[in-house]
């Protein structure tokens, strides 16, 4: 059946062409075929249109690509689908420690055809070995000694320096397909673009020196439009980047993403010590028991947030908390893209650590909106955020958020820690997702896998959907438990295993 131009007039990314009728029907057919073959290979999730198009695009690249979609658009899921398209192979994911738990969880959730395994397990057909950049540096031979199906470098901007050991080792890993995943808009950092490009498609961008002479210097020093234009055309075959705004019609207006983060060994030690201390000395009875259980819950939640918080320190902050490192990566991306973001925490001490870290690493004076501020200061912070005059990130105390704040500049909301009552979190998220918001809002809830935060997350799932009046504080449920049951809930689960 021939199509009129009106039936196939979706613009291509260059903005100057549309697909022909034949190409449109071909694409549709291949999308349908891909959907079928992914289902057969064991994908249990339903891909959104742009995700399916993304997987198809990745498959059409010869041997490697950079997937640089905005945060929250499902890069992990697209990578998993890509692995499913390479059957009869063992796959490899190298990521920061803070996201390794999330990979294992996403694979278990979305791909029955794949099995996530750890560093020390045997890689076999259909397995995905999830390992970290730290391991890549320490024990490279295990990873470089074999041929993988797909190797995915997640948060690949972390190894963008070609002189480092991690980068050089990553280059020697052999795989049928090399995928770099990053949410940072690499096209703005041309040196990084070269590094990632050369990591996944060696030689495609020429040598580093030549790239510098032909692109970086002309574009950055003399603003050469011809060089910029040629580079854009050249990288269109290498980098896929869709922004949240571009795919907004396909996104739900309010979208919650649960982010499981790995526990660090320091957190594990502190967590186990707090538990042992409380249960060894005994929790007491009556009102004394109530006080000691609440104190224990608070302590455990603080350990999950950051050892520095529970120990009352100012630093150092990196590589001590899985959630903190994950948040730092997320905020790096958000600061680069300029999209508005709210970070909620229930602890003032944590809020101060977060703003101190942003000031330290980005030189940004990110305000902390909390209940102790004078109304005039509070209004100024809100105005500056909304008008775009202030930084695009705002740290907000969960308790300060209940009042009529309008923070619709934010299209991302991050809950750094979990409150017992989901209604309180929802109310906070609604500061961004409310009338006047014309973009989809993505809400991220961070949790340390295998800890008390898992319990809170499960409780939220159970309670959501009930009428608000039926909600009671979650601590009350725990207070009613005997020692053994309470210990069973609070002790570290398998996801936090060593």
């Amino acid at each position: 059946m021939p199509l009129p131009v009106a039936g196939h007039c979706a613009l291509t990314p260059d903005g100057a062409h549309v697909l022909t009728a034949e190409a449109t029907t071909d694409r549709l057919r291949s999308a349908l075929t891909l959907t079928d073959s992914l289902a057969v290979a064991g994908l249990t999730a339903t891909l959104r249109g742009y995700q399916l198009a993304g997987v198809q695009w990745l498959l059409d690249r010869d041997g490697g690509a950079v997937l640089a979609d905005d945060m929250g658009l499902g890069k992990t899921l697209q990578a998993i689908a890509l692995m499913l398209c390479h059957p009869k192979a063992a796959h490899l994911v190298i990521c920061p420690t803070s996201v390794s738990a999330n990979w294992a969880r996403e694979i278990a959730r979305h791909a029955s055809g794949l099995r996530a395994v750890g560093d020390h397990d045997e890689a076999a057909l259909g397995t995905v070995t999830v390992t970290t950049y730290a391991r890549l540096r320490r024990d490279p031979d295990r990873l470089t000694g074999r041929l993988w199906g797909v190797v995915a470098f997640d948060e690949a901007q972390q190894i963008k320096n070609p002189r480092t050991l991690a980068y050089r080792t990553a280059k020697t890993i052999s795989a049928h397909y090399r995928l770099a995943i990053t949410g940072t808009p690499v096209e703005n950092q041309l040196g990084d673009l070269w590094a990632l490009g050369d990591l996944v498609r060696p030689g495609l961008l020429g040598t580093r020196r030549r790239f510098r002479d032909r692109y970086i210097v002309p574009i950055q020093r003399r603003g050469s439009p011809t060089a910029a234009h040629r580079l854009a055309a050249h990288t269109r075959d290498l980098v896929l980047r869709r922004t949240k705004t571009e795919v907004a019609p396909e996104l739900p207006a309010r979208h919650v993403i649960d982010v499981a983060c790995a526990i660090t060994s320091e957190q594990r030690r502190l967590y186990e010590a707090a538990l042992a201390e409380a249960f060894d000395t005994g929790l007491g009875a009556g009102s004394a028991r109530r006080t000691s259980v609440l104190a224990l819950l608070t302590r455990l939640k603080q350990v999950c947030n950051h050892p520095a918080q529970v120990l009352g320190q100012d630093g150092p902050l990196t590589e001590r908390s899985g959630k903190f490192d994950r948040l730092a990566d997320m905020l790096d991306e958000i600061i680069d893209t300029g999209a508005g973001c709210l970070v909620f925490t229930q602890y003032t001490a944590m809020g101060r650590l977060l703003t101190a870290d942003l000031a330290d690493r980005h030189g940004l004076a990110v305000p902390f909106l909390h209940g102790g501020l004078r109304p005039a200061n509070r209004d100024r912070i809100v105005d500056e955020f909304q008008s775009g005059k202030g930084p695009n990130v705002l740290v907000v105390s969960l308790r300060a958020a209940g009042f009529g704040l309008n923070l619709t500049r934010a299209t991302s909301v991050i809950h750094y820690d979990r409150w017992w009552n989901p209604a309180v979190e929802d109310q906070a998220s609604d500061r961004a997702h409310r009338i006047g918001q014309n973009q989809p809002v993505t809400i991220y809830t961070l949790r340390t896998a295998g800890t008390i935060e898992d319990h809170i997350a499960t409780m939220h799932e159970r309670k959501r959907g009930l009428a608000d009046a039926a909600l009671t504080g979650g601590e009350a449920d725990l207070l009613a438990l005997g020692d053994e049951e309470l210990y069973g809930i609070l002790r570290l689960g398998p996801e936090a295993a060593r």
Partner: protein
Amino acid sequence: MTREFGATAWGRAWLKQIEPVLITGAPDRDLPRARALARHAITDLTITGRRVTASITDRSHGQTLALDIPAWSGDEQRTVERALTSTGSLHAGDLPDRLATDLTAAGVRIAPRIEEIAAAGDTGRIERRHVLAVCYALVQRIDEEPVLAVRLRTPSETSPSTVKSSPAGLLALTDIDPKTFYLVPTVRDRRNAASR
């Protein structure tokens, strides 16, 4: 450190014609002025075949210059073609520096002497420093895309076709006719489209 002019061997071959290595006599006072003009005063540098056009504004006086670059001799052209065949595939308009060195050694003059370039302007007389400024800008353009150094000297009959055509599977917006936008194409329309 990347040179501002002549970052590649191809750009440097052109630069040598502008700035001779052996200086005899007084320093050429046009050169510093031409470099400054190349940096700030040249707009719309376009290259079509062997013709380079550019607009230049010097002391608030604007002029459009057209430079015609002389083609290689038959011998030079054959040497270049042979060398290019053995170079293999190239990416994004690059050519190896080594090829420039080899061609020079084989007697090919990559860039012509400046005096061989025919220059025409749309207003008044042509200043030498203006021609030099356009050449400096051209050096930077060649550094960005070394294959231009070959195109600029290739006789037009052997130059690859420059007729723009849409990539396979794509239809340029400029080729869409609003009159037939909503009409189902007839068999004849489709046959015509296929033969285009």
